[in-house]
């Protein structure tokens, strides 16, 4: 029990903080913070598998998150038949062409391994293929984007349940990770960081600018939900009855009937938003718990020991006959798939897909701060990092505002410095996160909850 004391304390403090937000700000805000904390926790678990278990640095988290989000759109949105009939044929031909190019390149790589001009041949195939695809696809793209551009202008999705898209998001991310891993995993750590970051940028710029795929920067709004809608709840009698029952004491104090009705109405509206968020929390919590069980099992399995051995000494592990390259690729794919899942969860939670919002600051570096702060190699630490850093990220503005007001209380209201500081309060979050990261890295390099490995004393 004592072993887990610090974990329990840390999580209790986190929960108390969120409850305090609920009491002082509102329960709706507290729950949205909690939901985002859970999503961040899934992302950090993905990054932690790569960095903590295997020592692979992946700065491409942004790209996998975006792919997860794209999966939601492609799976859950209803298909647009007009667009399919306008340009579907061209797009499918292009897809087949892409597959063909990949197969030809693969064939050349296998068959003509020793050919001198192999690389030039491949380059020729790719360039010729791209030109061909452009010729085939561009009329299709134009036709698709011309179909009701204000509302659709894209192919739409498959119209399947949105929860299914979480799995697809993971698969998409895994596929990308396979490609990236093949290209970049041989690189030294800091090169890998740069290469993954830049590849993620390429992915995001493709999602942003290929309007026929997911409307690009025009955003997809009004996605399906795995939970009920507020407006339906507000009209269903069982929910109104439930709210009435819960607030019995408060309502009984009011004598006037019309006033009672107004207050009940307001309560129902508030409660419906809380209820929806609670449902989301339930879903996310299930995912986090399942992942936590799986990752914990993996960490203490022979496979986990192998990964740690590879992380701590690659050469020695290689000499013992472990296939370092294969294991690295596997763990890179696994971690990225979890990040993709988190990306899909996030878009589901928001109900909209905004490719323009995928920026490295928010989706790569902040997630990395979470991993480092929480504790690398420890899943409880990673989850705590996700919670703590996200909480700080959201609440930094109000905290900064409070501190500024406190320290400049003696200054005049119209004082130029005070006004300037209050205006720039939102940017203090960068300062807090940065200073937090630097302090943790200096004085607690293993994070808040460090990795614990059970070793028997001989």
């Amino acid at each position, binding site marked *: 029990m004592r072993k887990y004391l610090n974990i329990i304390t840390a999580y209790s403090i986190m929960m108390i903080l969120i409850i305090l937000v609920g009491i002082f700000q509102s329960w709706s805000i507290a729950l949205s913070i909690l939901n985002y904390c859970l999503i961040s926790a899934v992302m950090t678990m993905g990054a932690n598998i790569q960095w903590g278990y295997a020592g692979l*640095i992946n700065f491409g988290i942004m790209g996998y998150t975006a792919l997860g989000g794209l999966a939601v759109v492609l799976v859950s949105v209803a298909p647009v038949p007009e667009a399919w009939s306008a340009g579907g044929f061209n797009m499918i031909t292009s897809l087949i062409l892409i597959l063909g190019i990949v197969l030809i390149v693969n064939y050349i790589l296998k068959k003509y391994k020793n050919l001198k001009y192999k690389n030039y041949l491949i380059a020729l195939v790719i360039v010729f293929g791209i030109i061909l695809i452009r010729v085939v696809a561009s009329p299709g793209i134009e036709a698709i984007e011309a179909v009701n551009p204000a509302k659709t202008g894209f192919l739409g999705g498959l119209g399947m349940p949105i929860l299914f898209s979480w799995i697809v998001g993971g698969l998409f991310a895994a596929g990308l990770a396979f490609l990236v891993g093949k290209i970049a995993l041989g690189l030294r*750590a800091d*090169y890998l960081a*740069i290469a993954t970051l830049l590849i993620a940028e*390429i992915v995001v710029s493709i999602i942003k600018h290929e309007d026929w795929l997911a409307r690009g920067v025009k955003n997809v709004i009004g996605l399906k939900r795995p939970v009920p809608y507020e407006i339906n709840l507000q009209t269903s009698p069982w929910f109104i009855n439930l709210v009435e029952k819960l607030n019995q004491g408060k309502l009984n104090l009011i004598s006037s009937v019309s006033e009672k009705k107004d207050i009940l109405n307001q309560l129902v509206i508030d409660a419906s938003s809380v209820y929806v968020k609670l449902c989301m929390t339930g879903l996310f919590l299930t995912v986090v718990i399942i992942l936590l069980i799986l990752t914990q099992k993996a960490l203490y399995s022979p496979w986990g020991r192998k990964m740690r051995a590879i992380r701590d000494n690659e050469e020695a592990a290689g000499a013992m006959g472990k296939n370092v390259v294969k294991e690295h690729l596997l763990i890179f794919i696994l971690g990225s798939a979890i990040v993709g899942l988190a990306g899909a969860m996030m878009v589901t939670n928001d109900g909209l897909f905004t490719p323009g919002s995928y920026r490295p600051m928010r989706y790569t570096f902040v997630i990395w701060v979470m991993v480092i702060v929480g504790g690398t190699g420890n899943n409880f630490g990673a989850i705590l990092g996700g919670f703590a850093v996200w909480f700080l990220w959201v609440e930094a503005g109000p905290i900064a505002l409070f501190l500024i007001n406190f320290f400049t209380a003696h200054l005049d209201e119209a004082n130029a410095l005070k006004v300037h500081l209050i205006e720039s309060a939102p940017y203090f979050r960068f300062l807090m996160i940065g200073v937090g990261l630097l302090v943790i*890295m200096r004085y607690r390099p293993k994070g808040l909850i460090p990795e614990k490995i059970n070793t028997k004393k001989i």
Partner: protein
Amino acid sequence: MELLNALILLLNYTIVPAITYGSQLALGAIFVTLIYGVLRFANFATGDMMSFGTMFAVLLTYYFQSIGIGLGILPTALLTIPFAIIAMILYMLFIDNFVFKYYRVKKSAPVQLAMVSVGVMFVTQAIIRIIIGPFDRRFLDGEKFILKASEFKEMTGLNEGLTIKSTQAITVVVTIILVSILFWFLNKTKTGTSMRAYSDNEDLALLSGIDPKRVVMITWIIAGFLATVGGVLYGLDKSYKPFVYFNNMLPIFAAAIVGGIGNPFGAFLGGYVIAFAEIFVTYAYKKFFTYLLPESLEPDSLVQLLSTDYKFAVSFSILVIVLLFRPSGIFEGKKI
């Protein structure tokens, strides 16, 4: 005549902008490469450090303008660069002393230093946004054009005009001066040689009596020059916006790696490789071909390899290709 028109067209829309942009990238790439070579980590705060130096130049420019000091036809910002460089160097030495030094002395892994530089990135970005805000600012004054399109047309009688902005000329001139001094310093002076020795083999350099503290300090001082000048030149040419500077870190990294990280001359050329590739691949050649080809063969599409939306993606793809086939960079840098 048609051929001349086509050439001028290409010069005006691709080559001149590419040389300017390339010079700005090259300065940043040398900065990255120097830090990587001497201090041995990938500095993720690159973009924000450039932004930090530029911020001082912008603020001082506003101040100088308000008290009526200027350079006539040249932008006032040139006058503020020395002060901005001093501020930048002080900030870099401060950060190095309180943040990076600890890990250097402890001989931490490069990845850890890279993570620390992410922390520095956050803090620097916060300071910049708190001081100057996240807004887009222009601080160019003085004469805007050296050569206007209309003047050029009158002079030569061609259909196509050639525009040369004063910022483009300033960028190229300043880059040439700064880079020549830098290479002279690195190759001919004793301090420069000791820096290169330290970068090649730290232990041997220490054995031969090179003072590591001095080498590190001089590296940061040079970095301060490069970051500030590169940042100010970019800001003069386009505009100053903190977020854009942060994003510029990515093509700068690409340039440094393409040129072979740790190799300043490679980084210098890498900047131009990236800039030319970005602009050549995304330029629409339709007009160019209309001049060259007979009417029957004229293209009706834009003849654009990739849309300009993919400008950044081009440089990153080049990086991926280089990493695949020549991981140590086109111009041989450190081994990966």
